[in-house]
Structure formats: structure tokens, C-alpha cells
């Protein structure tokens, strides 16, 4: 399964959008946080988990999704949200904690919810899996189209929720795809130190479902494998577990000194940065001209600039609005 040219363009544009968005967030996040770093200061307070380097996973999977398909994401959700089509302006405003944000500032960066494209988050490891199984069940019971994709990290495969939701999805043959982003690190603990097997996709055997491991952080390979899994789910043939080797180019959160990484690891990762790699491939294959790719990058940058300006210009929520929206 090879993506058509317009899909390739979309994938590249969304990868660049995500990266440029995070570059902007990263810079703004540090405003007000020097010389003394205090997480509570600046226009974007709180924890910040960047997904730089993990963009191929988001676009390779979401290229196959429609707005009615459901995605549950993690505490590191920006790339997934952008690829799923979450409103970038409202998402930026939410990350700034503004009244115009997706949730009026109640959620922040770990709780990105956009009902228009069926996107939800949880800041707790593996806890999006149950809701994804439930959304898939809802579609199955109602005979409505749509699949559910739960993005998790490789550390989440060691949570009880992973096992419970995988088994539930398999025993009920739910239209669900679990995508494990293996960035090799659960904060400071390596996959090797935390996980009894090398590939979490092997765990699919425990549920009698297909499991695929995709090495290389390669958006095209991800596109291919995810496409087959999503088609399978749409046909009613049940869930698939996919683990994808990817790289976290940033720390676990901003402010993470990353002392746990072996010397030189980051240099190696930057050398494999998937965005320049994809640009080079698209050019080498002769599918795109420099001008076409530049145009996509400019489009991405414009969307990011727009979103950031919107967020900056938006008003803070009224403090007393904290007391609303607890109940429907």
C-alpha cells in the first residue's frame, strides 16, 4: 500500500506542522522561566511533553483515518492531535490556558479534547485504551462506521490497563488498533530495563491477534502497516497491535536534563531526524520538487504562526469559570 501523491504531501505537511508547532511552543515555554526554571512561570506553565521525532507515527496512522474515527492519545499528544485534524488554533489556545482553548483552559496540554474529530487524551499511562475499546464497541453495537485507535508509549504495555483492554478488544473482535510508540524511554527507564520482551508487538500472540513491529521510524512503512490494520478493523476482523520504533528528540518533559541517555545517543537521533529524511526521500524519488516541498513547509509554518498568534491574543478564562462544566 503506497500513498498517493496528495497523501504524501499531507503527511509531510503535517509532520512539518507538528515540528514547527513544537518549536514555537518550546521557545514560548521558556519565556519567564529563566534565569530560574520554575514550571509554574511563563505564558505556558505546567509540564510540557514534546513529540519531536515521533511525527512519522502520527501521520502514518492518521493518514487512514476520517473525522468519525476515534483517537485516544497520551500525555504527549501534539503530533497525534495535529495529524487527526484537531483545530490547531484552539489547541494552541488550550496549551496557553486561554478562554478560547478547546476546553476553555481546563485541560491544558495533556488533556486535548476535540469532539469534532473524536479526539481525546489521558495524561495517565495506558488509560486511553479502555475508552478506545469502548468507542470501538459503540460502533460495533450500533453498526456505525469508524474505528478506534489508541496511541500509547512502549512503557504503557506494562500497565494492567493494556492487558485488560487488549483482551477485551480481542475477545469482542472490536474495530480497534493499538499503536505503541516505542521511543525507548519511559521517562528515564529504558525499555530494556522495564520490559521483559524486546518487541511489545509479540504480545499480540497472547490475544490471538496480529502484531507488527515497524523499525526505522519510517512514515511510509508505518502508512503501509497501519493501513492494513485499519482496513482489517473496518472489515470487522478485529483489532491489531502495532509497535513502532520511533525517537524522542526532546526530553521526557521540558526541563529534563536527560542524564540517563548514553553519551552521543541524541546526536545519533538527530542524524536520523525523520523530517529531513522524508524530504530527501521525496526529492530523491522524484515525486516532489524543492519548490513543492518548500510550499508545504510554508503552509505549515503559516498555520502554526496563525495558531500561536491566536493563542497569544486570546483572553485568559474568567477565574470563576473554573467552577463550571463539571457536569453536563
Amino acid at each position, binding site marked *: 500500500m503506497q500513498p498517493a501523491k496528495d497523501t504524501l504531501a499531507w503527511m509531510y505537511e503535517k509532520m512539518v506542522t507538528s515540528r514547527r508547532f513544537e518549536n514555537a511552543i518550546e521557545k514560548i515555554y521558556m519565556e519567564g522561566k529563566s534565569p530560574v526554571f520554575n514550571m509554574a512561570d511563563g505564558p505556558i506553565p505546567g509540564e510540557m511533553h514534546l513529540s519531536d521525532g515521533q511525527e512519522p507515527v502520527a501521520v502514518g496512522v492518521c493518514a487512514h483515518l476520517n473525522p468519525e474515527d*476515534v483517537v*485516544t492519545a497520551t500525555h504527549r499528544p501534539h503530533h497525534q492531535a495535529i495529524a487527526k485534524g484537531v483545530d490547531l488554533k484552539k489547541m494552541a489556545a488550550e496549551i496557553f490556558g486561554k478562554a478560547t*482553548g*478547546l*476546553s*476553555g483552559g*481546563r*485541560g491544558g496540554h495533556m*488533556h486535548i*479534547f*476535540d*469532539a469534532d474529530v*473524536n479526539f*481525546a*487524551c*489521558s495524561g*495517565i499511562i495506558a*488509560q486511553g*485504551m*479502555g*475508552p*478506545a*475499546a*469502548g*468507542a*470501538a*464497541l*459503540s*460502533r460495533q*453495537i*450500533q453498526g456505525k462506521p469508524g474505528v*478506534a485507535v489508541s496511541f500509547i508509549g512502549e512503557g504503557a504495555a506494562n500497565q*494492567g*490497563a493494556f492487558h*485488560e*483492554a487488549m*483482551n*477485551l478488544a480481542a*475477545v469482542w473482535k472490536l474495530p480497534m488498533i493499538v499503536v505503541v510508540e516505542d521511543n525507548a524511554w519511559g521517562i528515564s527507564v529504558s525499555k530494556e530495563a522495564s520490559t521483559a520482551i524486546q518487541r511489545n508487538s509479540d504480545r499480540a500472540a497472547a490475544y490471538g491477534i496480529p502484531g507488527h513491529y515497524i523499525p526505522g521510524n519510517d512514515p511510509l512503512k508505518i502508512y503501509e502497516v497501519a493501513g492494513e490494520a485499519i482496513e482489517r478493523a473496518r472489515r470487522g476482523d478485529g483489532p491489531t497491535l502495532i509497535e513502532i520504533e520511533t525517537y524522542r528528540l526532546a526530553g521526557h518533559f521540558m526541563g529534563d536534563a536527560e542524564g540517563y541517555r548514553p553519551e552521543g545517543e541524541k546526536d545519533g537521533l538527530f542524524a536520523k531526524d525523520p523530517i529531513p529524511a522524508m524530504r530527501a526521500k521525496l526529492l530523491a524519488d522524484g515525486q516532489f520538487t524543492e519548490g513543492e516541498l518548500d510550499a508545504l513547509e510554508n503552509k505549515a509554518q503559516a498555520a502554526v504562526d496563525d495558531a500561536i498568534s491566536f493563542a497569544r491574543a486570546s483572553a485568559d478564562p474568567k477565574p470563576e469559570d473554573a467552577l*463550571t*462544566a*463539571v*457536569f*453536563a
Partner: protein
Amino acid sequence: MENERKLTIARAMAEATAQEMRIDPSVFVMGEDIAELGGVFGNTRGLLEEFGKERVRDTPISETGFIGAAVGAAQDGMKPVVELMFVDFFGVCFDAIYNLMAKNTYFSGGKFNVPMVLMTSTGGGYSDAGQHSQCLYGSFAHLPGMKVVSPSNAYDAKGLMTAALRDPNPVIYMYHKGLQGMGWLGTEKGAIVHVPEESYEVEIGKAAIARAGRDVTIVSIAQGVHHGLKAADKLVEQGISAEVVDLRSLVPLDRDTIRASVAKTGRLIVVDEDYHSYGVSGEIIATVTESNMADLKAAPKRIAYPDVPIPFARVMEQHCLPNADKIVAAARDMCGAPVPA
């Protein structure tokens, strides 16, 4: 009345669910042993036969998985009714309950609703020890984002279930095992009352005056209401008129009814089968003392479960549980009544 139709709470819950399932195709039920068996405590009996396996699902023993799934289905437009067989089991799945179910409406700024009912059994008194006998009312009521109800009788059980199923919010529906009307758990006759056949709602957040009185207010919920009513029967023989308030809902809490009753009687006893400290009993007393200090003729008292895990041995558990005699003693003390001969 001769032709009155009396139901147990278990039957009333199942009837309400069935009636709602007939008119609302988005309602479905899942949990452990709720389909073929009809629920360990009888509250889903007959549903599988009428609605089939698609809408009435036995689940694996995976509370985190299926309660999390209920959240996802609710956000996707369905109305799941899920059962956590014993409330004590919340320890294996509380993340799905209070970090997902109770918070997603807020975190989404009201864009995602989570209309679901989480049924769970509470209560002890039958020597099932400390992992199958707790009430944990306060643990659930403490955390924002979910409504919490618990009926004391079958009429309220049906009406609260119907209301819960029509509520756009997550509702924790706590049913006391001692009131279910399952013979093997003992039967509280006072819980088996007339239940109309037609569908109706009991408003969530509205307490009931289970018995009107003049001298002392006894506030409770579920099984505690029956202890209060029995105590009131004894007290009236001793010249003390007790009013019994059945909270029916803990969230929202009907503070007005509690305050109005205490304004009338000047005395407050809270009966709570949940643990003594940091719980419902303290909240009820605070509700009154924050606003009605001048109305109080005596310091409020609480008869709650001591702050110990629930023991197995009958004599030990019974020693700890609230009962009518403890309430009578407290009321007499507060009313300055002499110890009867």
C-alpha cells in the same frame, strides 16, 4: 392495599433498566455475571432474555478495561450501564472511574458528555470481611464529576435508576446488599415496597423525609435509613419524636432538606455505615454547623463505622456496625432523656 405490587430493590433496578432499554437503543449493560446469571445481586435479571447478548454483556474480570470502555462508549453517544460487583473492588479500577469518567466532561470544557451508570453493591453485616463489606460512600462522593445515589427502598430504586439512565452525567448507583431482597443476604422488609409499573423518575439530589418528627433529626442513606426508622419506632414509645431524612443522593446533596429538618428539631444524628472519619457523616454535620449553629440544642452526633477494616467474626462486625439501639441511645442522650427503667 390489597392489589399493591411490591418489588425488591433488585427487581426494581432491573425493571427500570429494561423499560429504558425498550425506549432508548443507546442503553446497554455490561459487567461481570450480569447476563446469564442476571447479576450476582439480581439487579439485571431478565435483561439478557429480552435484549440479547449484544446489549447485555458478560465481561471478562477486567474492571479497568470495561469501565474504561464504558467511558469511551458514553463519549461516543451510548449510555452504558456497568456493574462493579462489589464497591470494594474499586481499588483495581479507580483510575477509569475518577480520572476518566469523572473528569472528561470538565477536561473537554463540556464538549464530551459521559452519560453512564456505574452500579455497585455496598454494605456488610453478613460476615464477608473487609474486601466485600464496605460502603465507601465518602470515597466516591468526595471526588467531583460524578453523581452518587443510593436507594433505601424499591420505589426509590426504580425512580433513581430511571433518572440515572436519563442523566447526561456519570452516576454511581450504590445499592446496599442488605436491602436487595436476595434471601441469601438477609432481607430488610422495609425495602420491599410498592413500585408502580409505569416508568418514573426520582429526582437525583432530592432527599426524602422518611418519617416526620419533632425532637431529633436522623440523617442517613440506604441501610442506615432503616436503622433510623427502627430507632424512631422505639423512641416514640419513650416520648421522643424523631424525624428520619433519607438522603437518597450524596451528590448532589440536598443540604436544604437537612438544614430545614434540623432547624425544626434542633438535634442531628448522622448514621453512616461508611468509615467515621473524613466522610459523609462529617460532611452532613458541617452542612448544618456552617449555617445553623443557632438552631442546635445539642452537639451533633454521628454513628458511623469505626476507622478499622471490617472484621469477619460476627460479633466483631456487629459491634462496629450502626444499629437502631446505638441511635436510640444517642437520641436519648441528646434529648436529656433519662435512661428508661
